[in-house]
Structures are given as structure tokens and as C-alpha cells.
């Protein structure tokens, strides 16, 4: 092996500039991969984590499965062609009739950790002269705690106040900002669609990082919301917390079968996002792949050039007793060396970009709201980066190396004589 290294390193470092360019090419590929992977996955993981925390793993609700033609079909039969104009929604009872029974029934389920009832509705919240629409969520704080991680997002951990003070609310941080509320204790008026207006005290803020929620949500005691919506003892949603989050769909289906209610696991609720993430990943990896391919061409290029320019030297080495496979090794090793150095540099670069991104103090406000970038600094990305680089460099180097090994020294000696 020494006799191979001896020649490899010489050939490589004699052409410093080209070697350096090839190394830099690889390192950009690897660095970009690491940075992109940690950024993308960091964002996605953060989003899913937050979403999982906030949105029940499984939600059970009343779903309006209105069939506009139901009556017509009943009267005229299934094969009738019709079009319904101006159908009015029935005054559908958006209610889970036996919710207390359901909660009891699933309390002891081994797949579930928590279960909590919700009543949701719309309302207008007013502070001073500012009006905002809000989605009102009535919760049972004791049960809610077990079924979600709401505590984590309540800024001052005053969820209990919803129990003691029935006229208190926790409002979304961005909603509060839009209303002009910057501290607790402020009084807001909430008006419901059935024209009930009620005065509430803001006791805490809700700060999930998910813009859509923080901008609209108001939590209050379930009993209070039932009262102001005039829906005594009614709920329209039950949430479940699952032991194994990745079995959510399965358990959702089970509950659906057992209860007849519409259920939805988080993967389904978030399918649009998960789909977007898939596409996003796809694009990211395509770009990174393209960079790596370009750097592989860099390696291919430098080794092909070396082989073409060093035909004479290859002939001499063969005359001195180097075998074909050793010549292959000499040139493949050049590729691997470039790949390896590029990978090392790329790791440093990737780490540097991560450090930089981590230090950037931007408040991103898109689908999610974070301070700085949510990075996933999984060491595996470095390992993958190195593996990719080495694999690519071996592939890129192989053809020219093989070409080199096939040179017949006699041909070279004759042609230069």
C-alpha cells in the first residue's frame, strides 16, 4: 500500500490548484447537504412536534355528512339525475351526545394516555375599539393537561385559573398583540354568534409558535363556553393522546369503528403539510444531489486529466513493476483523497453554517414562528455527507483509473520515441 500512496500523493499535490478546486467542489456539496438537511428536517421536526403537541393525536368530531340528494333519491330512486339549487344546511346538531360516557369508556384504554372534551365555536373578541374574530375553545383544564401539552404553551403557566375563575380566558399571543394587549389582567368582551356578549379577564397568553393558532385561539373553561354558546352539557370534539404517536391513524380507525363518530389522526389532519414536506425534501435532495454530481464531475475531470497527461508516467510505473490493479488503486485513491478531504472540509463548512444559522437572531413568522432557525443537528447528516462524498468520488475516479490501467507501456514508449 505504501508504494501506492507514495505515487498517489505526489501526483495529487503536484497539481495543487486543480486538486484544491476539486476538494472545494466536494466540500460545498457536503456542506450544503449538511446545512440543508439540518435546516429542512429541523423545521419539519419542529413543526410536527409543535403540531403534535397542540393538535390532538386523534380527534373525534361530529362530521356533517350531508347528502343533498338524500331525500330526492329516497323518493325517485337511486338512478335519477338531478341537481340541487340553493340547498340550505340543516340546523345540524354539532354535538357529541354521549361524551361523558365516551370519556369513561376510553379512560382505561391501554393505547391512550389522555382524553379530553372540547367545545369549539367562533366569536368576536373586542378590546377597547379593536375587534378580532377568534376561535373559542372550551376545555376542562384537568383533562386537557393529560390529553395535550397545553401547559407548555401557556406563557405564565396559569391554566388553573380557568378552573377557579370561570370568567377568565387564555388568548393567543399574536391575537393579544393584534388587539393591543401586552399584559394579563386586561378585560375583553367576547361576542358569540348567538349574540351573547360576555366580559372576560385575560389571565395568560398562549404561545405555540404556530402562527395560525396563536393568531386566533382563545381558551376558556368548557362550562363557560357551553353557557355563552347556549349549549349546556354539549361538546363537539374529543381529543385523545396516544402512547405511540405513529399509531394514531390505526387507533383513530378503531375508535371510529367502536363509536361511529368521525375520527382523524394527526397524520391525516396534517396530510397537506406532510405532503409539502415530502416535496420540499425531494427538491432539497435533488439540489444537493446536483451539487454532488457536479463535484463528482470535478473529480472525474481532474483524474481524467491526470491520466491523459501522465500517460508516460503510467508507462514508466508499469515498466518499474506496478501492476494494472495497482495503477487503478493509485488513481482511485486520488479520487478518494479528494473526496475525503472535501468531505472533511464539507463537514467543517456544514458545521459552520449550522453555527451561523443557530446564531442568527431572526424571528421567522411564516407557518411557524421561531426565534432563529429550528435546526436538526443530527450527527448522522455528517456521516451521510461523508459517505455520499466518498461513494461519489470512487465512482467518478473509477473510469479514468481503469483507462489508465489499460495503457500499454510499449505504445507510450514507441510513440514518444
Amino acid at each position: 500500500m505504501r508504494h501506492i500512496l507514495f505515487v498517489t500523493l505526489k501526483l495529487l499535490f503536484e497539481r495543487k490548484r486543480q486538486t484544491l478546486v476539486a476538494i472545494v467542489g466536494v466540500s460545498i456539496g457536503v456542506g450544503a447537504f449538511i446545512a440543508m438537511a439540518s435546516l429542512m428536517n429541523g423545521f419539519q421536526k419542529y413543526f410536527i412536534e409543535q403540531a403534535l403537541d397542540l393538535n390532538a393525536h386523534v380527534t373525534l368530531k361530529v362530521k356533517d355528512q350531508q347528502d343533498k340528494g338524500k331525500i330526492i333519491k329516497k323518493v325517485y330512486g337511486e338512478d335519477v339525475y338531478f341537481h340541487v339549487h340553493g340547498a340550505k344546511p340543516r340546523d345540524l346538531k354539532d354535538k357529541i351526545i354521549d361524551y361523558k360516557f365516551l370519556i369513561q369508556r376510553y379512560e382505561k384504554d391501554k393505547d391512550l394516555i389522555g382524553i379530553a372534551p372540547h367545545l369549539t365555536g367562533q366569536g368576536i373578541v373586542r378590546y377597547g375599539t379593536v375587534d378580532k374574530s377568534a376561535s373559542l375553545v372550551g376545555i376542562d383544564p384537568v383533562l386537557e393537561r393529560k390529553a395535550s401539552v397545553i401547559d407548555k404553551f401557556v406563557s405564565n403557566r396559569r391554566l388553573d385559573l380557568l378552573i377557579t375563575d370561570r370568567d377568565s380566558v387564555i388568548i393567543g399571543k399574536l391575537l393579544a398583540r393584534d388587539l393591543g394587549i401586552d399584559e394579563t389582567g386586561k378585560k375583553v368582551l367576547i361576542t358569540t354568534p348567538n349574540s351573547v356578549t360576555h366580559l372576560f379577564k385575560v389571565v395568560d397568553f398562549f404561545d405555540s409558535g404556530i402562527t395560525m393558532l396563536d393568531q386566533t385561539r382563545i381558551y376558556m373553561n368548557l362550562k363557560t363556553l357551553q353557557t355563552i354558546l347556549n349549549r349546556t352539557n354539549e361538546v363537539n370534539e374529543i381529543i385523545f393522546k396516544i402512547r405511540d404517536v405513529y399509531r394514531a391513524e390505526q387507533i383513530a380507525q378503531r375508535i371510529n369503528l367502536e363509536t361511529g363518530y368521525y375520527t382523524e389522526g394527526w397524520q391525516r389532519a396534517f396530510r397537506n403539510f406532510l405532503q409539502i414536506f415530502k416535496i420540499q425534501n425531494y427538491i432539497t435532495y435533488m439540489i444537493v444531489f446536483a451539487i454532488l454530481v457536479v463535484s463528482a464531475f470535478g473529480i472525474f475531470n481532474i483524474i481524467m486529466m491526470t491520466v491523459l497527461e501522465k500517460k508516460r508516467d503510467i508507462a514508466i510505473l508499469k515498466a518499474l513493476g506496478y501492476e494494472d490493479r495497482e495503477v487503478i488503486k493509485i488513481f482511485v485513491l486520488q479520487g478518494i483523497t479528494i473526496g475525503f478531504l472535501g468531505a472533511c472540509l464539507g463537514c467543517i463548512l456544514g458545521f459552520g453554517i449550522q453555527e451561523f444559522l443557530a446564531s442568527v437572531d431572526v424571528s421567522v413568522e411564516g407557518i411557524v414562528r421561531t426565534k432563529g432557525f429550528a435546526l436538526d443537528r443530527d450527527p448522522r447528516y455528517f456521516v451521510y455527507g461523508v459517505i455520499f462524498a466518498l461513494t461519489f468520488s470512487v465512482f467518478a475516479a473509477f473510469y479514468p483509473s481503469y483507462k489508465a490501467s489499460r495503457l500499454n507501456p510499449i505504445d507510450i514508449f514507441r510513440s514518444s520515441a
Partner: protein
Amino acid sequence: MSSIIEVKGIHKSIGDEMILRDINLSVKQGEFVSIIGPSGSGKSSLLYILGLLDAPSKGEIYIEGEGISFSDVHRIAMLRNHKFGFIFQFHYLLTEFNLLENVMVPMIKAGKKRQQARERAYLLLEKLGLKGKELRRPFQISGGEQQRVAIARALANEPLVIIADEPTGNLDSKNTAIVMDIFGALHREGKTVIMVTHEIALTEKTERVVKMIDGEILGDTTNPTED
């Protein structure tokens, strides 16, 4: 004395052209043989076959009495490395390597420790009058000096035989004399040398002269005057 290289019934054709015809030649340990002939007579082609750089189209080769098969690439490479020291008209040094490293390459290939290889390379270069220039690169010395580096490299693994293809073809008379003196000295040390040339004057310094024309050996004489 036994023959260290022997070829029997060698033919070589390239395409339709027969460039070597029924060559029979045996070189004994310690001989200093020159092969002479006009340009294109097949001298280099024969030398490549003797040095196992090229396979004949037909015929047998024996090195130290053992038959050679060109399909055994590993053995061929080992023999090139251990048994032969090649010297070419265009010296063919590795331009990326300094003189010392050029001489070290065959030794490193043979598995010699780096330090030992370095010491021997210094010794050989000194012996060939290149002391002090060891760390220069090939393009930083004269043609005559380059050829001496090539000789040093050829001697690196103490080869069985030194094979030189018009080693002085590119040198002026002064350097030609130097190289021929070196060969003479090597011969006196007991080394076997096979040298191709097209200058009759040079054959006078050798023990034995093989004449080639049109791919055939037309004469094989021993020089009466030997020093």
C-alpha cells in the same frame, strides 16, 4: 555459466507486419551484449520482449531457466521490478518526483522500508556523480545527468540484468562516454547488460554484438578486444 535470459523462436507481428522473425538468443550471467542494427530493424521490439514489457506473438522466454507466461500478470510485474533495470533513450523520469524519489520508486514498490530506500538512493546517486543534486527535479538537471539518474533507478533493486534502449541516443559525445564508462564499470562488477544502439563505435566497448536487420538476427559475434 548458465543463461539468465533465453528466447526461442520468437516472432512478433503488429497487424500484418512481421517485425521480429524467429529470434533465438541466450544471454549469460555477466555478459555485456550490444544489439545493433539500422533504425526500424526491430531492436527495441526485441528488447521489450526480453524485458517482459511486451509479449511475443510466438515463441518462448525463459528467465533464469523458468518459462514465462504473460497471463501471470503478477509474476510479470514482480520480474520487471526485481530482475530488470530499464534505461531508455528518453530517460523517462517521473517529473513530479525529485531525483531521490525517482530512484526510490522501484525500491518502495519492492517493499523496501522508506528509510532504507532513501539511503540506497543517496548512495546510488552519489556513485553516479549526482551528489548534492538529489532533491532537484528532473527538469533542473542536464540530459546527461538525467540519464545517470535513470541508470541509478535501474540499479535500485540490484537487477539481474540491465536493459538499455539507445541510452546514449540523445547525449553528446562527452556524456555518451560517461554513460559507456558506467556500463563498462557495471560490467566489470559482474552485472549483466543488454544495450541497444545503432552506433557501431559503441559496440566495440561490449563483449558481444548481436546484429539485426529487418527483424532478424544476422550475426552474433564476440568481440576479440575486451578490456
